């Protein structure tokens, strides 16, 4: 019974923080992007335009709810719910500090990857159920992209698992606390694995240069073409949450999670997550996107064999130099 209460209490707490952060980031990103583009960004609504996020969300909530005539209504409604659910659900196994963790699953890494796989289905549904050609093209493309990048993602995540010898996320962090070089050491499997993981995470959360499902200059709105109001908001929110939670996962698996001097663990974890999160948006506002076939070629030709080699390298290191970990 205690598990039930624990999960619920931390669920409410963690999700409130995650949602508030992504909500505030609506304002933050607009300011951030504006500064990169030598603009001011929102300044009208509230001090420094801070209430812009509230205004944006309220506007989206008020929108009329339109369902295309020949759409598959049930699946059309299910898709955004599933997408938001999967993105938020991953937060369950992220250890924000030794104590702040909703569920210390012994197969936490698999849990994260499994929910990520479910997101793929949500995206496909969004594209398919609209009965819109742009949405369908966006859906097919992004499913192909998501499943392709899942392979390097899974294999790169295996590197810290091998180093720490456990599938539990908090075990991996705990192992890194003992090794202050984090999972980035040994450098050969560690650093490239982090790079591949981060890249694959960008691809899974559909951020530029991997934002194929949206690709609004080609596919108008991609999978979200036909969505309005709260359903569009859920898709939109899911992307932000996916990025935020993905950053947290990367911080926990590779950057030592709560490990750090001078400050409490929670602060370190939050700081590491936010640094990764903001850098995702820095990349987003600096680069143009790839073409979908280039993305797939890059994944299958380079990232897949590289991540396989990294897994073997990690295993070799663990076997040969267990004392140098």
């Amino acid at each position, binding site marked *: 019974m205690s598990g039930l209460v624990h999960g619920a209490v931390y669920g409410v707490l963690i999700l409130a923080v995650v949602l508030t952060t992504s909500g505030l980031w609506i304002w933050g990103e607009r300011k951030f992007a504006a500064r990169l583009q030598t603009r001011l960004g929102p300044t009208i609504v509230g001090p420094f335009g801070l209430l812009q996020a509230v205004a944006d969300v309220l506007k989206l909530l008020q929108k009329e709810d339109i369902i295309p005539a*020949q759409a598959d209504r049930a699946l059309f409604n299910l898709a955004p719910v599933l997408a938001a659910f999967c993105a938020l659900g991953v937060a369950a196994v992220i250890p924000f500090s030794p104590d702040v963790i909703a569920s210390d699953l*012994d197969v936490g890494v*698999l*849990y994260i990857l499994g929910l990520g*796989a479910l997101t793929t289905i949500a995206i*496909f549904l969004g594209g398919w159920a609209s009965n819109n050609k742009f949405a369908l093209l966006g859906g097919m493309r992004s*499913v192909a992209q998501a499943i392709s990048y899942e392979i390097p993602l899974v294999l790169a995540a295996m590197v810290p698992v091998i180093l720490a010898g456990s599938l539990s996320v908090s075990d991996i962090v705990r192992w890194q606390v003992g090794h202050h070089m984090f999972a980035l050491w040994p450098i050969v499997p560690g650093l490239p694995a982090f790079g591949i993981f981060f890249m694959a995470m960008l691809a899974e959360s559909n951020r530029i240069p991997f934002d194929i499902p949206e690709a609004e200059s080609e596919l108008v709105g991609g999978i979200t073409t036909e969505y309005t109001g709260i359903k569009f908001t859920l898709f939109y929110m899911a992307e932000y949450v996916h990025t935020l939670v993905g950053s947290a996962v990367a911080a926990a698996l590779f950057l030592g999670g709560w490990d750090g001097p001078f400050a409490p663990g929670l602060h370190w974890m939050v700081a590491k997550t936010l640094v990764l999160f903001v850098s995702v948006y820095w990349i987003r506002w600096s680069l143009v996107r790839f073409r979908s076939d280039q993305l797939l070629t890059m994944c299958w030709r380079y990232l897949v064999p590289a991540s396989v080699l990294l897994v073997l390298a990690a295993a070799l290191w663990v076997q040969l130099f267990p004392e140098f970990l």
Partner: protein
Amino acid sequence: MTVAIGFGVVAAIALLSAILVVRSPNLVHAVLWLGVTLIDTAVLYGMLGASFLAGVQVLLYVGGVVTLMVFGVMLTRRHDGLSVPAASGSPWRGALTAAVLFGVIAAAVMRSDLEHAPVAPTAGPPAVEALAASSQATTQAIGFELLSTHVLAFEVLSLLLLAAIIGAVVIARRRDHGALDQNARTEASS
């Protein structure tokens, strides 16, 4: 008691979604109900303490196989709204098959000694036995068994996967053969 109720609910969902897989008039819906069944099975695995299997079930079956089937559906049929004609064959034949399958599985379950089944490896290096006591017992047990007792099957599996890859490539290339490349297209039309 709670466990019993939980199991009841999960089993009922599994049964219901399985029926919907068969009865659904829309192929994509059927595939998605299959996904529900598979997730439900993952929950069952989790209830039995096989958390690794539960994770694999979601990752592989829901994420992979369902996606594959969805793509398969999109690929193989010319469809208007993807409606499926009424189930082919006689329902009795299907019922018979199901009954036989159930009998086989039930017999297998009855014959195996579940009460005393080893959760952790019974023999192995002391380090493994120590690990077995940890929370990850099943995962590590699987890992150990896979690479010691069942190593031959493990290696044969890779050959199976290889065969599958080659088969897929060959089939896809044959399809490609029918399509004209850009130059051929121009020549054919002029």
